[in-house]
């Protein structure tokens, strides 16, 4: 496991350290607020929080070049924020608003931000892997020096899509880094119950691929390894697996209390390694930051502004229900025209909904 004591770490610009800490705090604060809003029934569907995984998320994203691409699983809020999507656009998406980052069509699991190369949070376990390999294929095919970062949970490594994706990336030398967030539990199933080889990074060897494991609670360690692997992908078209050992403090989703399969003591023990606390303390110790409260307050304010923005944002117009199913105008018109006893009746459905609208 690559572990770097902070004192030994390459000297980062203090301002960079501070900014990454701010992003971690924002992500934590955003998650806490999302849970609150979910419980107040302002957010629906599934809502997967990543509290505890901030160092791995922010550390890896900090190593992306501006034009690199990112695919993730459905545990996606932290990635959007780390990539620079505004908290307002993310919260508006959770609220189902037209001004959300997926225009209220995606929700918590399907955030996206094409301007920042974030090509989606995806809801089917391991389903995003072949897509990320395809994006890396485009880079190779068109001779662009850009890397693709593909996030997945450790529960995704027992699907066929994992095997097929790593094989294709390996056999065609595609510039993709598979970052496995090993938070120990796939829902409530521990990694050693699910995987015959629970040390996930070792599986890369089956594809003659570099596989590394890193302490995912150590921001700078994650940055070092992710930076190295992304550079190898970008510049040498070397795919790899990066396993981040991390932990989620909350349940699988907001609907899961998270205590059926683990003890409170275990969670408390893990919290002693809380990456936000640890890194904040290090910044104070090293004199980079005087007052963490100020940063926390600013994050709270940003999140409050995001909630205000989302509350005020308009819901998508109901008559836009059938928009974006297809890209071309002609097909859209054809579907709209086919109402009488025929195709898809979207116009009728919209009419019904408008009549029944509150």
């Amino acid at each position, binding site marked *: 496991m690559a572990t770097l004591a902070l004192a030994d770490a390459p000297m980062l610009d203090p301002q960079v350290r501070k900014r990454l800490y701010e992003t971690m705090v924002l992500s934590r604060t955003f998650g806490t607020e999302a849970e609150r809003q979910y419980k107040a029934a302002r957010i629906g569907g599934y809502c997967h929080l990543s509290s505890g995984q901030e160092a791995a998320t922010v550390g890896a994203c900090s190593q992306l070049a501006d034009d690199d*691409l990112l*695919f993730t699983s459905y545990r996606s809020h932290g990635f959007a924020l780390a990539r620079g999507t505004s908290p307002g656009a993310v919260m508006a998406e959770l609220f189902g608003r037209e001004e*959300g980052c*997926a*225009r*209220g*069509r*995606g929700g918590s699991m*399907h955030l*996206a931000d*094409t301007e920042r190369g974030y*090509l*989606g949070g*995806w*809801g*089917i376990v391991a*389903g995003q*892997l*072949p*897509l*990320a*390999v*395809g*994006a*890396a*294929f*485009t*880079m190779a*095919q*068109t001779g662009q020096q850009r890397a693709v970062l593909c996030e997945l949970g450790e529960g995704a490594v027992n699907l*066929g*899509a994992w095997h*097929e*994706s790593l*094989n*294709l990336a390996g*056999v065609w030398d595609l510039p993709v880094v598979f970052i496995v967030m090993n938070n120990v539990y796939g829902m409530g199933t521990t990694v050693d119950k699910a995987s015959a080889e629970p040390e996930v990074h070792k599986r890369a060897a089956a594809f003659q691929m570099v596989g590394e494991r890193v302490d995912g609670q150590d921001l700078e360690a994650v940055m070092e390894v992710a930076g190295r692997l992304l550079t190898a992908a970008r510049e040498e078209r070397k795919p790899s697996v990066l396993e981040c050992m991390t932990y989620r403090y909350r349940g699988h989703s907001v609907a899961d209390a998270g205590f059926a399969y683990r003890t409170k003591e275990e969670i408390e023990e893990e919290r002693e390694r809380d990456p936000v606390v640890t890194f904040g303390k290090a910044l104070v110790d090293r004199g980079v930051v005087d007052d963490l409260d100020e940063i926390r307050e600013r994050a709270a304010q940003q999140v409050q502004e995001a909630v205000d923005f989302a509350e005020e944002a308009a819901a998508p117009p109901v008559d836009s229900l059938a*928009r*974006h*199913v*297809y*890209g*071309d105008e*002609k*097909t859209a018109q*054809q*579907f709209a*025209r*086919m109402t*009488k*006893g*025929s*195709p*898809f009746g979207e116009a009728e459905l919209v009419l019904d909904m408008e009549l029944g609208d509150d």
Partner: protein
Amino acid sequence: MTDTATEQGTTTMNVREALRAALQEELAADERVFLIGEEIGVFEGSYKVTAGLFEEFGPERVREAPISEEGFTGLAVGAAMTGLRPVVEIMTLNFILVAMDQVVNHAAKIRYMFGGEIGCPLVIRAPNGAGNQLTAQHSQSFEGWFAHVPGLKVVAPATAADAKGLLKAAIRDDDPVIVVENLPLYKEKGEVPDDADFTTPIGEARVAREGADLTIVAHSFSTVRALHVAERLEEEEIDAEVIDLRSLRPLDMETVAKSVAKTNRAICVEEGWPTYGVSAELAARISSACFDDLDAPVSRVGMAEVPMPYAKNLENATLPHERKLFAAVLELLGEDPGTEWREG
């Protein structure tokens, strides 16, 4: 018949050659286009559709994939999201089942789920079909499964001209299109426009044969069967109109309804199982859209509801043969369904 044909000439070719011509022209015209699939390179494709293309365009544009349908279909989806125009060959449609998650849960959802911000100009082409004792796992026709899904387009040509025209239209389309080919159709010949910009618009059916007494609604190889049956019906002084749907999603109900309004009777035929199938969908829509025009309930003919057996006599009994369609037409018209079918 071919909607954007110009004054330029035509060439006689079979469906296989027409598909190859479409791929060749689009590879030459647009460097974003690439082919990917199993054995499509030096092996020239399991059914030889891609013959010669590997030699002409090289291993990057004609990408030989390992046996890994979920992997390379999903790879194509990701490539389409990021600016390329992949054309996936699935050796037969039966093999796409292991990649269904990538087609239905990913390709079909992308544009909508991300609010129109990301597109997926993807083509998947694969043959359906039965009739050579290929048995249960290799004789299926489930284009209806794909046509069920919003976000996908599904086309199923029946002629050489439409094979070329629809495949070219699919490659130029900005959304995922499933091009359903058919094994027995590959050798069918027809006139194909030479014009490199000839396409068949997606979503427009074709009146394959005009008639007054009833409408046979078909697609893909069933269209060929329906035209044979229509010829035989002529001897019984029955004048059948045949609609070749060409596109299953979007579906051109206007052409179908116009025909049924004229003939007042409809029979829907397909190669797949009728239960919850393409013919079920057509029957429901015709019944609703043409209720006042119909003189009889809509009739349906498809594959027998069994996994395809091996024995030749059992296979024959399972296929939606011309004689079954012929008998069903006679029954629909109140004629003696026992009238003898003679092979043409």
